[in-house]
């Protein structure tokens, strides 16, 4: 198999078999600076921090709700065509979700303001996000065709996908309101590199017994595919300047958008904490390099129909061309450059945490002065246990996950967080996160669905996230 084929196959596989990243391990893991990225209202005690460029936050998640690499490519002696038919075409349904997210931080920093109750964060990160639902009826048509399937409607709505590559510039503020409540908000400017979406398709294709002829084929379609940026990148690729074009589009030279994150942390009592955040409440307005494609209309045909003698009156009649013209007239495939708005996949997190055990002295620098509540530097407990909720807005409605977690701190050096997550894809998702603080150097790595590491190819879900930061807690 050629390298190109392997790469193409890998990209397709990754593109279709990864799904939206639930960062349940980093969420509310307050020792990790990147926890502010999933909750702007996180309780933080840093004086400042700076992520190591390109290494401060790398995350990738891969999975599938319906099938794994092993299901198809296991060296098990079975015919691969049988495996595809049984496990993919007949084994998956249109709600099986195939999507994903990755992020790479270019820049990430945070610093405490003159008012120590304020903590500011900012940075730039690249995010790719894609989702595709299993296009079951298209797959049946593609693998089996429509023969001997009279009256079976092939649902065109099974094609539902969206994806984008976007560079995000962000700046946020985190404010400790009092010793119990911390809130935060973040503004984001999105610079879209490319975008595609086709999420509101409707219609069907059906073959029935004909009225005049033997069969009648009906196509009723209301479909649209909207894209931006793809053409510019294709042209750049042809001209050999892909990197320059992508960079330009990433740094405000593409289509722009605006978004916001919100979050809070609230102490219900000394040991019980509630947190919540809403991320990527925003949109991108696509005005440049837009290419949209539509297929809209209805047509029913029974082949060429010739009723003599009238049909023979004009010897130049081309019945075939008339048929093609009729279909194209009633179901026109059109292209336009109309601007459009795409909404970001908004995410919601919430957690309830109970802290217990010994306490560890807070590391934050505290010039408490006359207003100790405004700069409270809470002690932490060595143990935390709780539950988290995650939801992300997807084309077929919200996708949710529930996690239970246990967190253990070993002084200021090491913190661990273990999670058990249940969602529509997996009931056996165990995750583990490790945060290591060696002086000012902070390193963290988290991995999900650890049981799947016994055979990665059979995993329907694998993810990891890691990062490297420098942190200061100010003068001691």
């Amino acid at each position, binding site marked *: *198999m050629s390298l190109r*084929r*392997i790469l193409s*196959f890998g990209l397709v596989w990754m593109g279709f078999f990864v799904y939206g990243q639930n960062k349940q391990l980093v969420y509310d893991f307050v020792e990790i600076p990147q926890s502010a990225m999933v909750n702007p209202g996180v309780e933080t005690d840093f004086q400042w921090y700076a992520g190591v460029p390109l290494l401060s936050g790398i995350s990738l998640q891969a999975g599938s709700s319906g099938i794994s*690499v*092993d299901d*198809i*490519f*296991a*060296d098990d002696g079975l*015919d*691969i*065509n049988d495996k*595809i038919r049984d496990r993919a075409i007949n084994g998956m349904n249109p709600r099986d979700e195939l999507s994903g997210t990755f992020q790479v931080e270019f820049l990430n920093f945070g610093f405490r303001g003159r008012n120590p109750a304020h903590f500011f964060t900012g940075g730039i990160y690249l995010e790719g996000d894609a989702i595709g639902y299993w296009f079951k009826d298209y797959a049946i*048509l*593609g*693998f*089996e*065709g*429509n*023969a*001997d399937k009279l009256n079976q409607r092939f649902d065109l709505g099974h094609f539902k996908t969206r994806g984008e590559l976007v560079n995000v510039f962000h700046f946020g503020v985190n404010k400790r309101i009092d010793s119990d409540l911390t809130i935060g908000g973040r503004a984001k400017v999105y610079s879209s590199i490319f975008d595609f979406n086709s999420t509101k398709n409707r219609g069907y294709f059906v*073959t029935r017994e*004909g009225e*005049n*002829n*033997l*069969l*009648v*084929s009906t196509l009723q379609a209301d479909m649209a595919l909207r894209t931006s940026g793809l053409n510019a990148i294709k042209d750049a690729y042809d001209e050999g300047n892909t990197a320059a074009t992508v960079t330009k589009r990433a740094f405000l030279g593409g289509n722009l958008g605006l978004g916001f994150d919100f979050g809070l942390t609230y102490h219900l009592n000394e040991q019980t904490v509630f947190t919540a955040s809403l991320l990527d409440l925003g949109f991108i307005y696509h005005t440049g390099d837009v290419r949209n494609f539509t297929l809209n209309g209805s047509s029913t*045909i*029974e*082949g*060429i*129909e*010739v*009723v*003599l*003698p009238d049909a*023979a009156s004009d010897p130049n009649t*081309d*019945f*075939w*061309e008339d048929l*093609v013209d009729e279909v194209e007239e009633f179901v026109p495939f059109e292209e336009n450059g109309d601007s459009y708005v795409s909404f970001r996949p908004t995410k919601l997190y919430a957690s309830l945490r109970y802290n217990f055990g010994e306490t560890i002295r807070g590391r934050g620098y505290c010039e408490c002065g006359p207003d100790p509540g405004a700069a409270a530097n809470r002690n932490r407990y060595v143990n935390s246990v709780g539950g988290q909720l995650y939801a992300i807005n997807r084309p077929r409605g919200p996708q949710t996950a529930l996690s239970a977690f246990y967190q253990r701190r*070993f002084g200021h*050096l*090491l913190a*661990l967080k273990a999670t058990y997550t249940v969602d529509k894809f997996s009931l056996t998702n165990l995750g*583990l996160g*490790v945060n290591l603080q060696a002086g000012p150097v902070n390193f963290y790595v988290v*991995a999900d669905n*650890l049981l799947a*590491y*016994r*055979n*990665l*190819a*059979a995993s329907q879900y694998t993810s990891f996230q890691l990062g490297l930061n420098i942190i200061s807690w100010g003068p001691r």
Partner: protein
Amino acid sequence: MKFLFKYMLLCSVALATLSSCVESQDFGQYDEIEVTPTLEASMLYVEAPESMINEAPSNYVFSQNFNFDAFSYDEFSERVLDGSVTYVIENTTSKPLDITIEFLDEQDNVLGPVDTFEIPATPSGEQQYIVYYGDAGYSIDIIKNTSSIRVTAVNRGDNSSISVEADPKVTIKSSAKFRVRLK
């Protein structure tokens, strides 16, 4: 003791990561994937009333070429493997007819054998004929090179009788069913 515990944990995590494995996969199976759907649709419908048969100057009722590019699109002709064409002919006129179907290339040359169907006079009901192409029938090249179809009807009876059936006519229905290789 605490330090020992910490480092044991770290080592466990490292070991878990290093011991992750992938069972044997054979990506060469990709080359064995066969995507060969069978597609089916109506092809041609021709109808001629008995009055036209009676009024024909000779026993050749009609002979007409119909442009039919469906088979000649590269997307089809380069991928078609085998299949069949089904004809259902109904004759409610009072005379027997010979119906000939010919597949022609772009230069109107006849491709392969010619199928002539002898249709009795009414009441003969629907006559069904299935012509196979590919390994089990005529050469599939006939289909690949078809640019038009010629239909000829020859009257084997008189040209004055009138059928007792209501709206007497001959109808030729046809559909195509072919397997194509997408991969």
